[in-house]
């Protein structure tokens, strides 16, 4: 038996006794979504951890890219009441011609303005949560999980980028007996991947490109650790659901699809792959963040191309779901 598998099993046997998750551990979260339908089996609550080492051109959660809290101003909503001006502890806000002006140097992103503003014209993207606070939200959803595979999905951002927080959350979920999924790019150290795998029932694992150079161009990072972690997890006996975000003009070439299929088929315990056709649905989010949309040049998904990719993957012996 493979060494990692032994490690994992041993860990599974003992972690009920030894894990006293620290409920004081904290991390940054930018959203908790209930009744999530597409983040794993049955009904899910999805917890989005903030911060990601990748910067994919098509990222559909740009608000989750940067670690830590960001303050967003939405001047259209401002009603000019001035409450934020007096509330700001740093005095970083001043009255502008149409709305409020923020002194970026003085602002510490403490979020007081967002808490104060009646019109929601300041928005805090992400805030620090303790494990106990997150668990209180998850526990509210427990009745919907009973008798099913429903449970929690940790997504992001990149959840593995906050390993201590994620591990503490997963351990707390183990104690609740809730199904746990981690939606990841796989970009982390091997040590982190294995540590997280001990408490994870299912990885939703994105495979973006097989070619290191292409991967680096579109995501900003090398794919070597991703591919290594994928094999490590699969061989350690972790359950992995592969997902291929199909980005027109980037990774939908026949050769890349074939390479992806061959890799997937070679992994123990992996029998299928989900193909996720590209949608430009995040465009509005970029605008709200005041960022240019880096995926502006990506053409719309072509159903024929999607089907072609699916066919290549099927020929590699994989079960293919479109969407998922």
């Amino acid at each position, binding site marked *: 038996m493979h060494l990692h598998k032994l490690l994992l099993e041993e860990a599974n046997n003992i972690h009920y006794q030894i894990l006293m998750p620290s409920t004081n551990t904290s991390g940054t979260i930018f959203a908790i979504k209930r009744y999530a339908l597409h983040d794993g089996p049955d009904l899910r609550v999805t917890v989005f951890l903030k911060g990601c080492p990748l910067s994919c051109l098509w990222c559909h959660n740009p608000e989750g890219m940067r670690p830590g809290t960001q303050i967003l101003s939405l001047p259209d909503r401002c009603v000019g009441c001035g409450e934020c001006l007096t509330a700001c502890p740093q005095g970083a806000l001043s009255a502008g011609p149409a709305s409020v002006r923020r002194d970026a140097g003085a602002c510490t992103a403490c979020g007081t303005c967002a808490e104060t503003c*009646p019109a929601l014209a300041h928005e805090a993207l992400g805030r620090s949560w303790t494990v106990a606070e997150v668990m209180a939200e998850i526990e509210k959803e427990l009745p919907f999980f*009973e008798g099913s595979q429903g449970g929690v999905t940790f997504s992001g951002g990149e959840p593995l980028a906050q390993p201590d927080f994620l591990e503490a959350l997963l351990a707390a979920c183990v104690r609740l007996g809730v199904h746990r999924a981690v939606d990841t790019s796989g970009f982390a150290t091997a040590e982190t991947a294995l540590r997280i795998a001990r408490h994870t029932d299912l990885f939703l694992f994105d495979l973006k490109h097989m070619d290191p150079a292409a991967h680096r161009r579109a995501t900003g990072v090398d794919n070597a650790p991703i591919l290594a972690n994928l094999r490590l997890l699969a061989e350690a006996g972790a359950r992995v659901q592969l997902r291929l975000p199909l980005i027109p003009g980037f990774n939908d070439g026949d050769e890349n699809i074939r390479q992806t299929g061959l890799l997937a088929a070679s992994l123990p315990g992996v029998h299928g792959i989900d193909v996720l056709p590209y949608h430009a649905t995040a465009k509005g989010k970029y605008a709200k963040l005041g960022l240019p949309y880096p995926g502006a040049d990506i053409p719309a998904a072509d159903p024929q191309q999607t089907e072609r990719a699916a066919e290549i993957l099927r020929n590699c012996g994989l079960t293919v779901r479109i969407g998922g």
Partner: protein
Amino acid sequence: MNDRIDRLRRESFETEPSISIERALLETAFYRENYGKHSLPVLRALVFKDLCEKKTLWLGDGELIVGERGPRPKCVPTFPELTCHSAEDLRVLNSRPMTRYHVSEEDIAAYEREVIPYWTGRSMRDRVFSQVPDEWRAAYESGLFTEFMEQRAPGHTALDGTIYSTGMLDFKTRIADRLARLDYLHDPLASDRAEQLRAMDIACDAAIVFAERHADLAWDKAKTEADPVRKAELTRIAEVCRRVPAHAPRNFWEALQMYWFVHLGTITELNGWDAMTPGHLDQHLAPFYERGLADGTLTREKAKELLCCLWIKVNNHPAPPKVGVTAKESGTYNDFTNINLGGLRRDGSDGVSDVSYLILEVVDELRLLQPQTSVHVSQKTPDAFLKAAARVIKNGYGYPSVFNTDAVVMEQIRVGKTVEDAREGGCSGCIETGAFGKEAYILTGYLNVPKVLELALNDGRDQLTGRQIGPNTGDPLAFANFDDLYGAFTRQLEWVVDLKVRVNNYIERMYAAHSPAPFLSTVIHDCIENGLDYYNGGPRYNTNYIQCCGIGTVTDSLSAIKTHVFDTAAVPMDRLLSSLRANFDGAEALRLKLWNKTPFFGNDDDRADDIMRRVYDSLFTAIDGRPNTKGTAYHLNMLSTTCHVYFGKMLGASANGRLAHLPESDGTSPSHGADRNGPTAVVKSLSKMDQIKSGGTLLNQRFLPDVLKSDQDLDKLCRLIRTYFRLNGHHIQFNVVDTETLRHAQANPDEYRNLLVRVAGYSDYFVDLDLDHQEEIIRRTEQEMA
């Protein structure tokens, strides 16, 4: 759908509603001639018989199930003995843009000549309004409550399986037996009972006459019919109408016609609210269906065709339009025939059968306004059936709605019904719980709960008019804490419930004395045995419901005051009150603070949900167990139908940041836009209400089609429903349609004539709703998934 059904359906759909004055003319002539000669029950039975003998019959081409209340489909009679339309009402109905009812100038002239003069001062409505106290009138006019019995008779009638084993001749035998057992020596009511029983006997004869006339008509048509297939059908119709309702039905066809004659009888006799439903129709028909398939006299296709014919018949019967102030405003109205599928049988076994699935197919294919269909889900209901229902829900006509049988049974056992009677019960109208075939469960009117809070914030004055309506419960500026405010709220509540019940009890006795319903009484247990009318405590169970509206709005308003005025003291009470009175003019920042920075109901947030529970308990305490006139009690119901729009119009700006005149929250749903955490959070909030102590709650959820695309999505919807029901939720229903579609429908009504949406406990055609209701449907939170 075969050609016959396609044609009948199209005719039913395309025929515009009209008004027939035939019933009014016959009845007025009868009253002129006979009033004072008989006891009231006997007079009412004779009127009913006179109508059955004389009314114009209709037997349309291709019909298999026969009988119309009016002279032709969608032609509605009036009920001047209850409420007499003025010539002005009729003209408004004939000319209003939404759901117009055709009525000719000639008929209006005849109405003015023959009908109106007789009933002026004699109709139930006139008599009721001549007697009510000024205090009640002021509260009523300010929109604090509505009164059901000023427009239609008490109703809410659903049947159990009795009529499928008992013909009118059998009822007559029971009546004769009961008459023979009357104890004139010891029972002071014996002669009253005798009059009631004689009236029931006459009503049975009337129903038989009505069927015989249809048999004769079918027979005459058969004689001259050239097409041999149709000739055979007409002959069969004649045979069926000779058999039922005089005798119990022997087969599927007769069973459906039996029900339809009884249905027609009750809605011809009087115009009751939520007039009639067969209740658990799938359970009633299952034995006939199985026997027919077994002996080869019925096929699945034939059964489906006959069911379609019944469905179209129900759809042919819009309700008589209202009178007076509401004639202009009220859009479509129907008799709220709510057919229950699934559920439990009397013995506690699962009620789902092949007929349940067959009816789901009928519902899915016909897409009609009426009848409504609901699926009833117990722990024993197979997932396959719920999933089959979800596939119909997904298509987005707003039905079937979904009910929790286990909760419905518990609700009834709580108020003292036997477990068997409770299982045979279900939900009729919108969401109202009752023991089918054995109970008069009367809706008495809606209560505007946010308006009660408005009174408490204005020392009993109407915020919109300044008129003193309620008692003085203190200057809010003197309230030291939230409990002081809440105490004023409960004192206003006690006062208004007192007022409502006092007048309702009086109205109820008016109906018992002046407007008995002997035909309806015949088919409801135990009116014959008790020798008492349906309106006079005759049924085995008698319940009065007061329907409380706006729990979302009132909870959120209280939460806002608690948070901002008392807890953080960021908003002084005088500033809040002056802003409310000014409809937030110049106070937009305050309005937004209240709207955006308050814990609201529907988010699984205990800070708000605890307030909801407190309000719900206060409503329960104020209403539950108050004696009615039948020796039983009032109970709480949590339903708004469309009244939250009217109540909203009558409500000033509220402390949750809602502007004056906008709709309140509907049913037990959260305020529109207040629920921001998705449907599971809504369901969790709702589950904190002890719904078992009510006679029904109503939860609307709007889903966009995207959310219900795949088979797995439907499984997830079913899980949401099952979980809500495990948490004792009573009811949930879904609108599956996107905003774009609705906007497009508003702009191009002709393209969307058959776009059905869930309005309250029923579905309606979106383009027939007035603008307020359309906007309200659009505003209902979209449970949209990113």
